[in-house]
């Protein structure tokens, strides 16, 4: 169903008599229920393995494709300080991709297979990175909102039942906080600036608010993987719970900036002590996910170009290593 490579995985379960399989699965679930971690060579149900491969590789692809919208601004950052910061952030995202690809590889899929899935469009990545970054304020909004939403998603993943994924997430979460803060600082500076600068900030918030809310995925009623993922402790909170948390912490930040969240239905609910917010345009979400967002083709094209134009470097490095080891 997923890839050729994955068909070969999960073999461990195929040739077992039913009772034995049931026993293994019961033992596995008991470990999860007891908050024990699963490590690469432990027995695991084929569906657990495939769910993790799908989730971790999508996550890795998102980090890698996520470098593109911001990379767009490295050469045009407004000061040397901002240029250093944005380079460091983009470099971190590349590192996040590297940690996550490594974690996925422990489940039996190769780096090459994952990259092929990304470049052929078989694999998905976060829909947010298919939106354009026309102004510098978008870099502020991405750090503040997109990294903010990512942090909200990622913190519970530090306690995920699969050891290598959880450990990668701990490392990533340590690095994300700077991403969000540098973005918010960009927004502060713009909002303190001229009317034109403040307008830039508002327009960036208008562009990124709803796509950021979509980052948490479909609402709970339409999220087919949530139940099983929660039983397996891959997920700790539902999409809607995390989205609500994000809205609750972010709205006061927008107020601090003096910006208006582009949602007429947004209102504090005294009873629930949460914000009520308007309906999300799920058609747009599905459209972007299906490849019809503003930048889908541009993003994949950029990845393919990078992969192809880097091929000679990878080959030359290998040839050189082979030659060096012969000379030893």
């Amino acid at each position: 169903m997923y890839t050729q490579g994955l068909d070969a995985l999960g073999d461990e379960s195929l040739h077992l008599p039913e009772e034995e399989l049931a026993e293994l699965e019961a033992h596995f679930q008991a470990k999860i229920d007891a908050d024990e971690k699963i490590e690469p060579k432990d027995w695991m149900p084929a569906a657990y393995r495939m769910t993790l491969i799908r989730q971790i590789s999508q996550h890795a692809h998102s980090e890698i494709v996520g470098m593109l919208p911001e990379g767009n601004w490295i050469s045009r950052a407004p000061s040397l300080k901002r240029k250093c910061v944005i380079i460091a952030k983009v470099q971190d995202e590349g590192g996040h991709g590297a940690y996550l690809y490594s974690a996925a590889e422990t489940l039996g899929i190769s780096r090459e297979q994952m990259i092929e899935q990304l470049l052929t469009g078989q694999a998905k990545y976060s829909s947010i990175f298919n939106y354009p970054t026309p102004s510098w304020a978008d870099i502020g909004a991405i750090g503040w909102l997109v990294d903010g939403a990512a942090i909200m998603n990622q913190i519970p993943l530090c306690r995920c039942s699969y050891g290598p994924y959880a450990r990668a997430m701990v490392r990533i979460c340590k690095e994300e906080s700077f991403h969000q803060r540098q973005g918010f600082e960009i927004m502060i500076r713009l909002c303190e600036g001229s009317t034109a600068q403040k307008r830039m900030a508002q327009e960036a918030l208008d562009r990124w608010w709803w796509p950021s809310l979509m980052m948490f995925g479909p609402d709970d009623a339409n999220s087919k993987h949530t139940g099983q993922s929660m039983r397996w402790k891959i997920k700790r909170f539902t999409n809607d719970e995390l989205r609500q948390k994000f809205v609750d912490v972010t709205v006061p930040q927008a107020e601090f900036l003096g910006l208006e969240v582009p949602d007429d239905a947004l209102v504090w609910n005294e009873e629930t002590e949460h914000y009520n917010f308007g309906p999300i345009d799920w058609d747009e979400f599905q459209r972007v996910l299906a490849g019809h967002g503003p930048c889908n083709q541009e993003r994949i094209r950029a990845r393919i170009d990078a992969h192809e134009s880097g091929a000679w470097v990878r080959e030359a490095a290998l040839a050189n290593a082979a030659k060096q080891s012969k000379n030893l």
Partner: protein
Amino acid sequence: MSDERQHWPLFEVFIRARAGLEHKHVGSLHAVDAKMALEHARDVYTRRMEGVSLWVVRSADITASDPDDADAFFEPAKDKIYRHPTFYEIPDEVKNI
């Protein structure tokens, strides 16, 4: 595209956070040789001064115990409770022992 010779082998990365601590496994990466693995490990795993020393070792060179045999493999230690200090009863009035 998926010719084996074209793939960079996998290395495991270990970091000593500061003098006095042991090297600890932090993850893995692909590189053509150990020298490149060290440079990549520096860039991928120590961007914020996480270490003062790095080890890299080809993943293929690691021999690991089998988790399916873990019970039998580690069994010999299980019933030897006399290896622990709590096994020995010493009267309360005896001090510093």
